[in-house]
């Protein structure tokens, strides 16, 4: 039979939100194709109880394959999915946005000699086949991707697939024994999910002042904290500066960080790479300050200021304080 197989990432007993979005989308497409949406999870069986997996039926999954295996690494999942596709005859495999989905999807494409499309924002059915739409060239164009292989791999962009409860009943849970390839077991997790830096809360803030590499140094965040204080908001950061240790991971926006949609998002010294954009493009008002007039962030900001943030931010803080009568 044909069908759509979706990978669901989990951590500490919870299924990833982007994975649930992919399951919802997979179920929608499967029903349009007249087939079923199946899900695969890989991990420690104790952390994947029947009720959690059966509950994926609410998002439209008909069956969940549970494979005992290493967690948080891509290659064991490639083995599991390749095995399930080969016996189950699935025509498409899908992933929600995220780092692991990119790695698994690409590895699986190699294994199955399948076409792969990443950063997918929309999938539609045409003549009984799935067509994936992805933005290209810094989102200045979109392209429709048609698969010319037995299996098509669809890797969603972060937050592209909406989470939808279909009101379906429990999914069937089936344990599968996976024959892991030797190379898949030659990378081992030493520590997973280490939180670096303070545990700050940015998700409840109506106003976010975000800093990127353009701040020049860690101390650059002090001026942003003062501006955030004056505006009554919180401070966020890009991955580049979090990786550099300038600001806590808990404040990171984008691909492997938080997704936010505040009333005001002020980006200081942020170029606006896609991985950042996907985590904040839903903000009501986007203001960008950057000295490079070609920075991609100006393509999707409502107000762009081309200039030196070291000059502008302190003066803006003073002006906001004066205006708000603080």
């Amino acid at each position, binding site marked *: 039979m044909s069908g759509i197989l979706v990978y669901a990432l989990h951590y500490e007993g919870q299924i990833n939100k982007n994975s649930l979005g992919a399951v919802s989308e997979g179920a929608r497409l499967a029903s349009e194709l007249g087939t079923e949406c199946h899900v695969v999870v890989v991990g420690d069986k104790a952390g994947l109880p029947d009720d959690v997996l059966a509950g994926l039926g609410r998002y439209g999954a008909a069956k969940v394959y549970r494979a005992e295996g290493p967690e948080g690494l891509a290659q064991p999942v*490639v083995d599991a999915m390749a095995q399930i596709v080969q016996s189950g005859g699935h025509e498409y495999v899908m992933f929600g946005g995220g780092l692991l989905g*990119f790695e698994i999807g690409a*590895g699986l494409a190699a294994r199955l*000699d399948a076409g792969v499309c990443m950063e997918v924002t929309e999938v539609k059915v045409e003549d009984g086949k799935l067509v994936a739409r992805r933005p290209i060239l810094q989102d200045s164009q979109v392209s429709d991707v048609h698969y010319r292989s037995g299996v098509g791999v669809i890797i969603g962009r972060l937050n592209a697939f909406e989470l939808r409860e279909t009101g379906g009943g429990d999914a069937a849970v089936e344990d599968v024994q996976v024959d892991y390839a030797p190379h898949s077991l030659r990378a081992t997790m030493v520590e*997973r999910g280490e*939180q670096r830096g303070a545990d700050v809360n940015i998700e409840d803030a109506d106003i976010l002042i975000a800093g990127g590499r353009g701040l020049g140094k860690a101390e650059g965040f002090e001026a942003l904290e003062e501006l955030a204080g004056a505006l009554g908001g919180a401070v966020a950061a890009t991955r580049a500066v979090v990786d550099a240790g300038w600001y806590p991971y808990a404040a990171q926006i984008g691909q492997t960080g938080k997704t936010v949609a505040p009333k005001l998002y002020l980006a200081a010294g942020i170029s606006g790479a896609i991985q950042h954009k996907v985590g904040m493009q839903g903000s009501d008002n986007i203001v960008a300050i950057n000295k490079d007039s070609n920075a991609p962030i100006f393509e999707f900001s409502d*107000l762009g200021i081309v200039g030196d943030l070291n000059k502008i931010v302190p003066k803006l803080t003073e002006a906001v304080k004066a205006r708000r009568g603080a």
Partner: protein
Amino acid sequence: MKICVLVKEVPDAAVEKRINPSTGRLDRSGERNLNPFDTHAIEAAMQLKEGGAIDVDEVVAVTMGPETAVRALHKAVSLGADRSRHLTDDALAGSDVNGTGYALAKVLEAEQPDLVLLGQQSDDGECYTIGAVVADHLRMPSLTQVINIEVEDGKLRCERQAEYGYDTVLVELPAVISVGDAINEPRYPSLKAIMGAKKKPLESVSAADAGIEADRVGYDNARAHCADFAAPPAKSAGQIIEDEDTNETVEKIVAWLDERKLLA
């Protein structure tokens, strides 16, 4: 041991990229340069070589691309690679991710590297996936977006940020590792290295030389076929202020925020 670094020639950041409507492929005319993300992979190779924790005999730069891609190899060599290998063949033009990863893996198979390094993404194609494709073909463990590598008992202790925070993964060699740009600050090549780059060994190989099956590469054999290019729904352009007089700029920002009731 031998490290192979995968590099790519991409349009210069200042060149406006566009799709050629008649071919449906990226218009690759104009200034071109070494993919900036790749310089971090070369630097990571050099730091392993110079670090002494593991014996590195040779760093080899490998690329696939048209004749002009030689310049990317020269740049890679000027940054420290000992020699380079250029997979070039008209039959490879227009390959998708699947075909490109397969073709590169065939070249790497012949080199038998202990470690393959690459940058986290290409500046033009916006995909982060070639490393995982190559690794599956080579049957090597793999990790992408690594921001720290330490040698530990002949294995690599790698750190990277993933969905739930920072992961530390121990990877056995041989392996394929893609590095994030936070991993290092690439060095600038010396004038001497730039001048000497063209004298370092560079071997050109065709698809047939590398044992690449013709029906797995090239535009016509792409498993994922891109078509129907279109402009996305237009977002109304934002207002732009060039900061000349900062006091005036700040006044305009405050007024703008005020209008939207963001200073309440």
